C-alpha cells in the first residue's frame, strides 16, 4: 500500500481504474465528469492505452462494447443526460454478457437540468439503464477513497459475473479533494483470461460470438432466465452497506453517496442530544442491501430515507421494510444539497411518530438557526 495523497474524486477514480488494469477509455465531454476524462487523456496514451473522444455518447458506449468484446478492461464516464444516451449500448452489453465500467457523475435533471450534485438517476441506474430484462451493478461511493476502491471493485465484479458495472456518484464527490490511498496496480496481462472474448480464433478454436440476439423465443427466455439466476445469486452474496449506530437505534436513516455525508452529521448531532438514531449507508445500490434493512427492522421503529431527489431509493427501503415499519422521506432536488440542520428536523419529526414524504416546495422545514 502506498502513502496517502490528496486527490479529486474524479481523478482518484481514474487512477484507480488504471491500477485495476483498465487501459481503454471512450467518452464524450460533459460536466461534471471532466477531470476524469482529462486524467485519462493525459495518462493512457503514455502507457500504450487508448483514450478516445468519441463523436457521441452513443458511439462511446458502443466502443466500450467492442473493446469489452475483445476482452480488455474498458470504461466510459459521463453525467446524467449522457448516460441516458448510453442506455442503448448498456442494454446490449447486458444482453451480450459484457463487463465494462460506466461512471455516472449524476447531475440535476430531467432534461438538461443543472450541473449541480444530484441523486435523481437512482431509478435509471437501478431499474432501467436500458431496455429489456436486465441489471448492472450500481456502486455508490461517499468519499474520494471509495471513488478509488469501488472502481477496482466494479471491474472485478463485472468480470466475475460478466455484467456491466456503474459507479453512481455526483459532482460533489467528483470534485472534492480528500486524502486517498491508492490500491496496488494490476498488470493487465495478469488478469484472468476471458475465453469467451472475440480475440481472433488464431486457428485454435471454434469462433466466439458476442451477441444479444436470439430469434427463437425459447432460447432467449433461457438466456434471460440464466441471467436472472445470476442476479439472484448476486443479491445473495454481493450486498454491501455500512451500518452506523444501528444497534440501539429507534430511527434508522438510510442515505448513500453525498447525501450520506450530510445525514451522518445530522445523525451525530441527534446522538449528541441523546436521540437513538442510526444510519444505513448502501454502498451497493444494485444489489440493494435489503438484508441490512431487514435485520434492523427487529429493533428500529421507523426509517427515514434522505436523498438528493424527490424520493427514489425510498422505494427500495419500503420494499425491504415490507410494511413492517413506517418509512419517511426527506430530500432536495435540482442540485440543491440539504443542510444537516434540515435533516435533523426531519429526524426529530420521524422520531415523534410522524410519517411523511417531504420536499421543500410543498412543506418547508423549519431548520432553526
Amino acid at each position: 500500500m502506498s502513502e496517502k495523497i490528496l486527490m479529486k474524486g474524479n481523478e482518484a477514480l481514474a487512477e484507480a481504474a488504471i491500477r485495476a488494469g483498465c487501459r481503454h477509455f471512450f467518452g464524450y465531454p460533459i460536466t461534471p465528469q471532466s477531470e476524469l476524462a482529462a486524467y485519462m487523456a493525459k495518462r493512457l496514451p503514455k502507457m500504450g492505452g487508448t483514450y478516445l473522444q468519441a463523436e457521441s455518447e452513443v458511439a462511446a458506449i458502443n466502443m466500450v462494447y467492442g473493446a469489452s468484446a475483445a476482452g480488455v478492461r474498458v470504461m466510459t464516464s459521463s453525467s446524467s443526460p449522457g448516460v441516458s444516451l448510453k442506455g442503448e449500448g448498456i442494454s446490449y452489453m447486458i444482453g451480450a454478457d459484457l463487463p465494462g465500467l460506466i461512471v455516472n457523475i449524476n447531475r440535476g435533471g430531467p432534461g438538461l437540468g443543472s450541473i449541480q450534485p444530484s441523486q435523481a438517476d437512482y431509478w435509471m441506474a437501478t431499474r432501467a439503464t436500458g431496455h429489456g430484462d436486465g441489471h448492472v451493478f450500481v456502486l455508490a461511493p461517499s468519499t474520494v477513497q471509495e471513488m478509488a476502491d469501488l472502481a477496482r471493485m466494479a471491474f472485478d465484479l463485472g468480470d466475475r459475473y460478466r455484467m456491466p458495472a456503474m459507479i453512481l456518484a455526483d459532482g460533489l464527490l467528483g470534485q472534492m479533494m480528500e486524502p486517498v490511498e491508492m490500491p496496488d496496480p494490476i498488470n493487465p496481462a495478469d488478469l484472468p483470461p476471458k475465453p469467451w472474448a472475440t480475440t481472433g480464433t488464431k486457428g485454435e478454436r471454434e469462433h466466439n460470438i458476442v451477441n444479444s440476439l436470439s430469434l427463437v423465443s425459447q432460447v432467449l427466455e433461457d438466456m434471460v432466465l440464466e441471467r436472472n439466476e445470476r442476479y439472484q445469486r448476486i443479491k445473495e452474496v454481493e450486498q454491501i452497506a455500512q451500518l452506523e449506530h444501528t444497534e440501539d437505534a429507534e430511527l434508522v436513516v438510510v442515505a448513500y453517496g453525498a447525501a450520506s455525508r450530510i445525514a451522518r452529521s445530522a445523525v451525530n448531532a441527534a446522538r449528541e442530544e441523546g436521540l437513538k438514531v442510526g444510519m444505513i449507508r448502501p454502498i451497493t445500490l444494485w444489489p440493494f442491501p435489503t438484508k441490512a434493512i431487514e435485520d434492523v427492522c427487529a429493533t428500529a421503529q421507523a426509517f427515514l430515507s434522505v436523498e438528493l431527489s424527490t424520493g427514489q431509493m425510498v422505494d427500495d427501503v419500503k420494499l425491504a421494510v415490507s410494511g413492517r415499519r413506517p418509512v419517511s422521506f426527506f430530500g432536495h432536488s435540482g442540485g440543491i444539497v440539504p443542510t444537516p440542520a434540515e435533516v435533523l428536523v426531519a429526524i426529530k419529526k420521524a422520531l415523534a411518530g410522524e410519517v411523511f414524504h417531504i420536499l421543500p416546495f410543498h412543506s418547508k422545514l423549519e431548520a432553526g438557526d
Partner: protein
Amino acid sequence: MAAEKSPVLFERTSALTDKVTNYCPGCLHGITQRLVAESLDRLGLADTAVGVSPVGCAVIAYEFYSCDMVQAAHGRAPAVATGLKRARPENTIFTYQGDGDLASIGMAETIHAATRGENITVIFINNAIYGMTGGQMAPTTLPGQITQTSPYGRDVKAAGNPIRVCELLSSLDGVALAQRVTVDTPSNVRKAAKAIRKGFEYQREGLGFSIIEVLSSCPTNWGMTPYKALEWLRENMIPYYPPGVYKDVKAGE
C-alpha cells in the same frame, strides 16, 4: 481399387461456416458475403479477423463467418469495430452493413470512424431499401422509387434526397480507400473481389479506413424476379451511384 477422388474445382471457402444463409433467392448478399470470406482466406487473415454484423438482413452474419464475430446495435458497427481494433490492433476488423444501418441511423459512427482514419474495413451493401423490416424507404432509395413508406415514389421535396456515401466520405482525410462496386455479372464480381481484398490489404498496412460499397438488389422488396432486379439495378442504380474508385491513397503508385 479404391475410387479415385475427383479433383476439387470449387468448394466452400473456410472463412464461411456450413450454415445455410437466410438471404432471399436472387439477393446479392450471398455473393458479397462469400467475397469477403474469400478475401480473408486468400490473405491469410481469417484467424485474426473479427467481423461485426449489423442490424438488417445480415444481422446473423455471425453464424455465417467462421472467424470471431460481434453483433452490433443498429448503426453502431463502426463504433464497435473501433473498440475491437483499439483493444487489439493486431486483429483484422471488418463491419458488414446495409444502407439503413450505415447511412441513416449510423451515419455519425460512419463519418467519424472514417475521418479518424480508423484502421478498419467497412463492407457496405447498398440496395436502396430496408430489407429485413419489409421494404421501407432507405437513405439511398432513389428519387421516385416506390417503397412501403414512399408508396407514391420517393418525393425528394418531402423525403429529401438520397445519399451517395462513397462520394461523401471521399472528402475525408482519414479515408484510405472508398470504392463502389457491384456484383451483377461475373466480371463485376471479380472487380468487387479485388476491391474487397484491397480494403483488407490497406488495413494490414495500417493505411486507415477503407469502405467498399456494393450495389445490390432486393428482389423481394423491390417486387421483381431476380433477373428483373438485376436489370433494374443496371438501369437505375448504376447511373445514380456510378461504380468506381472515389478515394485511394495509393492511387498513382
